[in-house]
């Protein structure tokens, strides 16, 4: 046991009445039967009681002051408290059966449910803080490439959130210890951040692959060309083969999203879409007027048969 004067928070010259008053105050705050939800009350009250027993006894106090005895004194007889019976739960048979719900779990749930109300006002109560959840809108490219965001919480605290590369819509990030502060010296809760990935103007994601539709001119499609196309990592050069058509799909290997587990990148698929000239092209029109195709084409044949 520590110094009984320190435990009761009284001076060495405290009078009997001061010691008694100090004990009464601490007993009210720490008696286990008066604080059934406080698991540590018993240990504290044991110290308080032992300190009081030593200091209330004039002879023991004199001998302690003179250094003849140490603070351990006589060990208190071990008694069960009334709360050990009165708080014996109706749920105990159930709890014992599945070994699932400990009283700590229940106290933790109560603390979450009531925000520690009831016992929170007392500095002695200890419980893990509440979990908090946020939803965070994330741009498409930030999600696929990864990014860092700062969230400002309602109480003004800021939180750094690292969005991992390849983050998915509705993905939940857990920020350990960033929830509400604990009660007493209990640990803080966790923060859960749900990501809401915004759609992109032209990229679409399917698993680890990126799909994009890219317009090409008639000339590029007919004759083939090297064109620049956007990827999630920036523009790259792509060869459009001669004779490409609307719907022709080209693949850029490993230009997709990096898989979170395998580390392997998906691909980017580019669907070409032939776009005719937007302005009038008299020469092209004139050419087509006189053009006799080598093979007669009937693209609607299957639809009409």
């Amino acid at each position, binding site marked *: 046991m520590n110094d009984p004067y320190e435990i009761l928070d009284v001076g060495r010259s405290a009078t009997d009445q001061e010691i008694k008053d100090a*004990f*009464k105050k601490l*007993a*009210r705050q720490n*008696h286990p*039967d*008066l604080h*059934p*939800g406080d698991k540590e009350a018993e240990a504290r009250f044991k110290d308080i009681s032992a300190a009081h027993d030593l200091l209330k006894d004039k002879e023991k106090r004199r001998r302690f002051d003179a250094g003849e005895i140490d603070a351990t004194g006589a060990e208190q007889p071990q*008694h*069960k*408290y*009334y*709360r*050990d*019976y*009165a*708080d014996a*739960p*109706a*749920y105990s048979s*159930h*709890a014992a059966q599945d070994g*699932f*719900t400990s*009283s700590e*779990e*229940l106290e933790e*749930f*109560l603390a*979450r*449910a*009531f*925000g520690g*109300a009831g016992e929170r006002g007392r500095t002695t109560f200890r419980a893990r803080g509440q979990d908090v959840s946020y939803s965070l809108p994330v741009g498409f490219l930030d999600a696929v490439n990864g990014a860092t965001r700062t969230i400002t919480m309602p109480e003004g605290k800021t939180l750094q959130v690292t969005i991992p590369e390849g983050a998915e819509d509705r993905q939940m990030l857990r920020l350990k210890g960033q929830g509400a502060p604990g009660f007493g010296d209990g640990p803080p809760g966790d923060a859960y951040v749900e990501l809401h990935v915004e759609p992109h103007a032209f990229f679409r994601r399917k698993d680890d692959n990126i799909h994009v539709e890219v317009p090409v001119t008639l000339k590029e499609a007919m004759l083939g060309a090297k064109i620049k196309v956007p990827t999630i990592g920036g523009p790259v050069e792509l060869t459009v083969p001669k004779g490409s058509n609307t719907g022709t799909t080209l693949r850029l290997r490993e230009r997709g999203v990096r898989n979170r587990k395998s580390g392997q990148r998906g691909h980017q698929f580019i669907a070409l879409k032939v776009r005719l000239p937007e302005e009038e092209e008299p020469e092209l029109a004139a050419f087509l007027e006189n053009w006799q195709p080598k093979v007669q084409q009937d693209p609607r044949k299957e639809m009409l048969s």
Partner: protein
Amino acid sequence: MKNLEELVAGTPGLERSDLDVWIKEELVTVTREQETLLFTDEQCARVRLIYTLRYELEIDAAALSVVMSLIDQLYDTRKRLLSLSAAVVTQDRGIQSAIIAAMESRSAPPK
């Protein structure tokens, strides 16, 4: 189980006459076997609590029954609450969160 003499002897400072009053006022219940009063471990613990309240915290004898009644109500309420919580914590986390959210919205101060 202890009889009355054993209980008094095992609780230094406990006045027999006070214990008689507490029994008479039904602050503590006892088991009677013929002429002998018997105390279960729980009843002994309850006597020690009353003893602490009366002698160490110096609660007035007249107030003692009020305090004990409130303590009994506290334990009764805790028992119900713990039993309810035990049922809730066996539910999915989503259901638990929904219950907590509903409780928070009820306890939020009116705007």
